[in-house]
């Protein structure tokens, strides 16, 4: 790899401590991201994808979260070793995050302009002394224009509940990108939006990525969203990355049985199509994880080895990493 990684997560292992014991939420997660790359973190609920996003931007409360092992290097600096004040320097111009539910992420008692201004104030005031309200306005309106929001001057005078889902989502994206972060973490940004609005938001983000070179990490449960926009993806299950690699290669030829099942579960045909080949059972309870490979109770190709030992990440010829014994070279 020639150019330096923007973000490198190595062997991140994280526990949540609760009254009824410790739960391993992330196990040995390694992830790298180049400048300007769009990355997908895909998984079903409880796979640890949101926790991963929150741990990168340093928003996990500790307790209950406890990092057992690993490092998160952002531009060669380990974010886990920084103090809270040092870390806050990295947010805004460094890392921005858009949260899952736009209605919950926005403060209901402030108009949207106050909320976007807040992110501007924190960082710009520190940089420049004579930073006027007019400058603020310009930054805010420019950002909203970038997001192709119709009549931004009108939108900023509204309360969050007065806006449609698509507008609201763009306001929360604006809050995150107004400081032009190098890395933008997007947690389920299109969930709950109509397909057309969803496509527009994806287009806008892709366009933003092309123009500004902002690297994006898409956290989503929706494989179709991930496949539309991401260059590479990480498929997570029970706190582990089961398969990692180039999106097109994964789509055309998924290697991990879990990835295969996940793709097969998406309805594609008309009403007379055969039943969906869904994986049996449900995602495991993190408190009672099975031995060996965490997917083995639901896996159609299960072997004795899978029950005994958890597979390491095998590297394939096309630069993928797959956590499955089937990939072990004989």
């Amino acid at each position, binding site marked *: 790899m020639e150019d330096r990684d923007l973000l490198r997560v190595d062997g991140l292992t994280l526990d949540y401590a609760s009254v009824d014991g410790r739960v391993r939420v992330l196990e040995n997660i390694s992830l790298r991201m180049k400048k300007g790359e769009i990355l997908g973190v895909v998984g*079903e*609920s409880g796979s640890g994808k949101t926790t991963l996003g929150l741990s990168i931007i340093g928003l996990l409360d500790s307790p209950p979260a406890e990092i057992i092992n690993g490092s998160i290097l952002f531009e060669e600096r380990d974010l886990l070793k920084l103090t809270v004040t040092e870390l806050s320097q990295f947010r805004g111009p460094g890392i921005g995050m858009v949260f899952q539910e736009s209605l919950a992420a926005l403060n209901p008692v402030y108009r949207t302009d106050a909320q976007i201004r807040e992110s501007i104030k924190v960082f710009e005031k520190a940089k420049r002394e004579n930073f006027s309200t007019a400058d603020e306005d310009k930054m805010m309106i420019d950002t909203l224009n970038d997001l*192709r929001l*119709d009549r931004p001057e009108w939108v900023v005078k509204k309360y969050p509940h007065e806006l*449609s*889902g*698509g*507008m609201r989502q763009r306001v929360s994206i604006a809050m995150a990108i107004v400081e032009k972060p190098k890395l933008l973490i997007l947690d389920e940004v299109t969930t*709950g939006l*109509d*397909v*057309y*609005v*969803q*496509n*527009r938001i*994806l*287009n*806008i983000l*892709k*366009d933003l990525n092309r123009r500004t070179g902002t690297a994006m990490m898409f956290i989503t*449960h*929706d*494989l*179709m*969203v991930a*496949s*539309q*926009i991401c260059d590479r993806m990480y498929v997570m299950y029970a706190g582990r990355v089961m398969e990692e690699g180039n*999106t*097109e290669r994964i*789509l055309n030829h998924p290697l991990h049985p879990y990835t295969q*099942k*996940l*793709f*097969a*579960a*998406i*309805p*594609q*045909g*008309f*009403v007379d*199509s055969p*039943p*969906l*080949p*869904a*994986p*049996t059972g*449900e*995602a495991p309870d993190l408190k009672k994880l099975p031995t060996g490979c965490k997917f083995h109770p639901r896996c159609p190709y299960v072997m004795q080895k899978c029950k005994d030992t958890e597979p390491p990440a095998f590297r394939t010829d096309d630069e993928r990493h797959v956590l499955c014994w089937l990939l072990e070279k004989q």
Partner: protein
Amino acid sequence: MTNILEVKNLTVSFVVRAGNLLLFERGSGMMNVVNDVSFSVREGETFGLAGETGSGKSIIAWVLVGLFKPRAGSVKFLGREINFRKKADLTYLRRNVGIVFQDPVGSLNPRLRVREVIREALIASRLFNQRDHDFRIEETVDLVGLRRSSLDAYPRELSGGEKQRVSLARALVVPKKLLVLDEPTSSLDVSVQAQVLNTLKELKSKLNLSYFFITHDINVMKYMSDSLGILYYGKLLEVGRTYDVVTTPKHPFTVRLMSNVPGLKRAQPQQEDRLGEQGSSATGCVYCKVCPHVFEKCDVSPPMFDSGSDQFVACYLHDKHVEPIASS
């Protein structure tokens, strides 16, 4: 094939006290959330209703189980005209039509164990002797693919998929003819969604049911429904056989919708348009504020045009070929 359910010119109104809602009818203080909607469900088939958030899909579902009274229009179930003011008619409707609500958490009483949640439906129906309750509950639970051990659990102890199966069991414990499914899988993960969809299809043929299926997910809609309707701001824009509507959509809105159906592929970068993403008109076609093909005639709300082979379209351009927007 006979129709199990026929809905004609259904209109549901909300009283609007304040605010400047887009559909506000001046003077009357009433807002039509469902406006002049007609469709029918054939026996043994699935009728799908698709539409964006706030288009009135759930309101229609609630009318079909008598939770809402329509302001105008008629609902005919198995040939019997339902008078929503007559208790006997409502009882008849509820005895034959079951419903599964969208939110599996909000629709199950958190203080009751699963067994009692399901029993409530039996008690309310007064069709079963109390002695038979437990037998009937266990039979239904097996049918919907729920473990018997979950009967003694509280809803919060179950996973999302299991909760939806409890809702399904509650709807089916008294045998039904039609099941109203309001986004039954939208809160579930893909793998669990697939399991629930499979169960629904199995149950339909096993119990000889008909479905009224609501979803915003076109992939799910395609897979589940024989016929479908597209709802927009309370108006039905297009109705027809699923295959026809998906492959040859006629209404500009449906055309846009179908060209945006997500798939497992890399998206082609599209030219972004600056069109408002929503809006409707009180007098003309509901879609005219957004429609790229709008012309003078659209100031008057279009009727449903028959465009052949059971496809009906509420658009003056129903016989013209309309291109999806934002492609240039």
